């Protein structure tokens, strides 16, 4: 079994506050892994460590090691641009750029220096199809992305993320701002996408975790409490805290 991501003794400090405490975790390739836990448990922070988006925040200090495909991503020689192209991300709130639908998808390629129109056209179509959005927007590719509904916008962001062909796709509560129908569509999409991508998803919604993920990590106050196959976590957790959270006794 190949491990796509290896997290070893990862600690993260916001100034003096320790937000992640020696997290060690292996994430499997081409599976979807869910991070669950109450608010402020560090699941989003952990996710953002995987594409080093936490670097933007001032005063963040990281200890430990994350290797992706055998490379330590916190090595000084790592090119952030390349890392982030390999580790795509979808955010909690859909964040299309103030550009047309087409330009949104092509953005990642354009900044990487790809200008070939036919290649761009091809990728845009492929990505939109991959995000199950093509049929809905193919006639209005040059219209503003803000004309789309919330669910469509989120799928656009997924399409945008997969347009640069990452190997890993990080999803930070991708459905929290969506209605149930749109959520169902996105969940369907996630199940589809994990054939090609290693998916890491942060979610508040335990049903969602159980529906879309193969593995689940339960975190609490910056610590990884339990990590196992989703079935096991939900049916037969080995730690009482996990059981309490899943059965809704706190959180």
């Amino acid at each position: 079994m190949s491990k796509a991501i290896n997290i070893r003794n990862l600690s993260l400090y916001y100034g003096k506050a320790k937000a992640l405490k020696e997290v060690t975790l292996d994430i499997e390739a081409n599976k979807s892994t869910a991070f669950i836990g109450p608010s402020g448990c560090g699941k989003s922070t952990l996710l953002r460590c995987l594409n080093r988006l936490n670097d933007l925040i001032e005063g963040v200090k990281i200890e430990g090691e994350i290797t992706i495909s055998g490379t330590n991503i916190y090595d000084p020689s790592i090119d952030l641009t390349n890392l982030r192209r390999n580790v795509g991300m979808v955010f909690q709130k859909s964040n299309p750029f103030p550009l047309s639908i087409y330009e949104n998808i092509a953005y990642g390629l354009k900044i990487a220096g790809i200008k070939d129109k036919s290649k761009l056209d091809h990728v845009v179509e492929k990505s939109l199809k991959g995000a199950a959005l093509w049929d809905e927007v193919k006639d209005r590719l040059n219209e503003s992305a803000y004309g789309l509904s919330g669910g469509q916008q989120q799928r656009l962001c997924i399409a945008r993320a997969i347009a640069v062909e990452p190997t890993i796709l990080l999803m930070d509560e991708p459905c929290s701002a969506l209605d149930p129908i749109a959520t169902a569509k996105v969940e369907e999409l996630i199940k589809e996408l994990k054939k090609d991508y290693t998916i890491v998803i942060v979610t508040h919604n335990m049903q969602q975790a159980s529906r879309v993920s193969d593995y689940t990590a339960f975190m609490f106050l910056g610590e990884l409490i339990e990590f196992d196959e989703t079935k096991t976590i939900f049916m037969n957790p080995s730690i009482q805290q996990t059981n309490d959270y899943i059965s809704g006794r706190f959180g």
Partner: protein
Amino acid sequence: MAQFKNNIRKKIEPFRKFKDNAAKSIFAFGGFFIILSIFLIIFFIGKEAVPLFKSYQVDSNKNFLTDKEISENIIDFYPDEYNENLLFVNKDGQLNFYNLNTGKIKYTYSPVLLENETIVSSNSFAGDLDRILALGTSSGRILSFKLKFKLKYTSNLDRIVDLMIIPSTSITLSENAIIKFDLIENEESVTAVVLDSNKEIKFFHSEENNEEILSESLETSSVNKVYNLTTNLRNPPTDIGLYFHKNKVVAASEGGEIFLWSIENNQVVLLQQFKLSENQINKITMLSGRNSMVISDQNGSNFVFFLINNNLLKIRELPKHEHPIKNAFRGNLKKIFTSVDTKGNVKISSTTSGKELLNFKIKDYDLINFAFKDIGLLSFQNNNIEINEFDIEHPETSLKSTFTKVWYEGFQQPEYVWQSAGGTDDFEPKLSLIPLIFGTLKGTFYAVIFALPIAILAAICVSQFMAPRLKNIIKPVIEIMAALPSVVLGFLAGLWLAPRLDSVLVGVIIFPILLILSSLALPPIWEKIKEKTIIKTEGIQFFVISIPIIIIIFYLGLVLGEFIENTIFFGSFTDWLYQSAGVNYDQRNALVIGIAMGFAVIPIIFTISEDALSNVPQHLVSGSLALGASKWQTALKVVLPSASPGIFSGVMIGIGRAIGETMIVLMATGNTAIMDWDIFNGFRTLAANIAVEIPEAPVGGSLYRMLFLSSIILFMFTFIINSIAETVRIKLRKKYKEL
């Protein structure tokens, strides 16, 4: 329990209600008051400016009857400044000063006349100090007198005007009666041109002072100085005029011809002769200052002619009459022209703009004259005197003269000119706002050219690349710059920067080029340094290191500039510029303003742009970075387009500030109202103009009202620009909410 609650409510509610209502009405009143006061300000400014373009009417029409005896022998009459007393010129030479209200003669003066000599013509001019009255006699003489009016007030504050007549000059020009004449008389010389009953034109000039001419015997006096100009005429002359040069004479004929002579070195030269039309020319009116004239003809037309390079040029037509022009008058104080046709129709027009200011009809008359201070027209028939009084306050201003090119006296072509006051009374005010609007735009343009790149680049740098700790210091510091009083900036610019700038001009021009080149060359070096040290590009260290680098580059620019100036421009760039490109370098110029006003504008554009850039939602930035974009790409492709309306609005407010800026432009532009985009020339802005001209503008005058008009224009400029900025900002705020 329920009852208890109710009791409490009853106690509290009225008071709360009162507080609510009081607050509501106070806020409503405050808001309403502010809006009202803004409207009132605009209203009062407008009220002061509107009379510039108003139409005029006759204020009063008075009629007086005189004794038959008094009016019998009159050949002409002259009013005093108030149209209360008239000086009657009798055929037999007697001058009677007559009070219209009492109907009595207050003062009589009888000049010494020759045997059988009668007065046939008369004229009155403004002399150096006093008015001059000149009489043409049947024996070819011109007699001139100084009219000394004295103003007194009785104990009831009634006005009493007294007159004293002092004889001045006597010249003999002809053997025949003098029908028409024109005269220039002052301390240094006497010049006259006459048209006699024999239809001959005679010219006389003497540099000797008046007493000498007087003391000479009449027969020999200066007869040898009289020139006969009649030789060229085919048709009988109708009128004559004298230019202020004193050696140029113009005449018109029954055949519609116009002649211009010059008398130089005792020789008469015919400079110009042309036929205006088939119509007989009835009147030549030399306008005040004798720089230009109006030709009035039998067809009722009035044409303004300028003398440009010894050549008479028809400049514009004044309002035309249906009937032949019988009389015409120039304004003595104002640039107006009054013509009366044979049917008694009077038209008063502006000689500057050609606009008709006033028209009315008077009764039939034998004699007519224009009030000395341009406030009325007096006509006389039998023993009835009709006085029409009017006050044409602002003849020189019209929408056309304010906003289009006008051909002013002494100019080679029509131009936009702002020149509000001159050295002499017969100065023609030139009140075109175009040079000032131009100057305002020029100053704004150069200030924005200077401020825009610096402010926006600084905003991008601070909002996107700077460590928050540093940003928290830098941003307030730049904002404090906005609090710098503009008088300090203007003072620095005018008295410190301007005198030093020309010596380091080349260096100042080179500096930005060097800065751009070095910022292209430095990053690779920087990368190398970064690898070996712990210095971060975002950290404070980077900026601390940048400052000495910029200072070094600036110093290099100055050194290099001096070197280039010495080698390529032969030691002086400004001299070279003047000699090779004809560009004159003013010490106080648009470049100085660009820099000084730029400093006033930078904080505004910077603050608003920085806010707009910082407020671009973080999730957009993260989204871009997560796709593998660099910080620079994110800033340029996501942040900048999202914030562009905010930046635009910042630039607009900056422009608004630059347009209204007064002290800096006042102190550092030289305030020359010229229209020239050249960066090394000065200019005058609307705002600075108001500040400059206030001491020169008497309340209620044309200039005073013009300043109000320019403040309205200034207000409109800033209002429009700020409205655009505000609309864009509101839209942007909505957009950010959607993002």
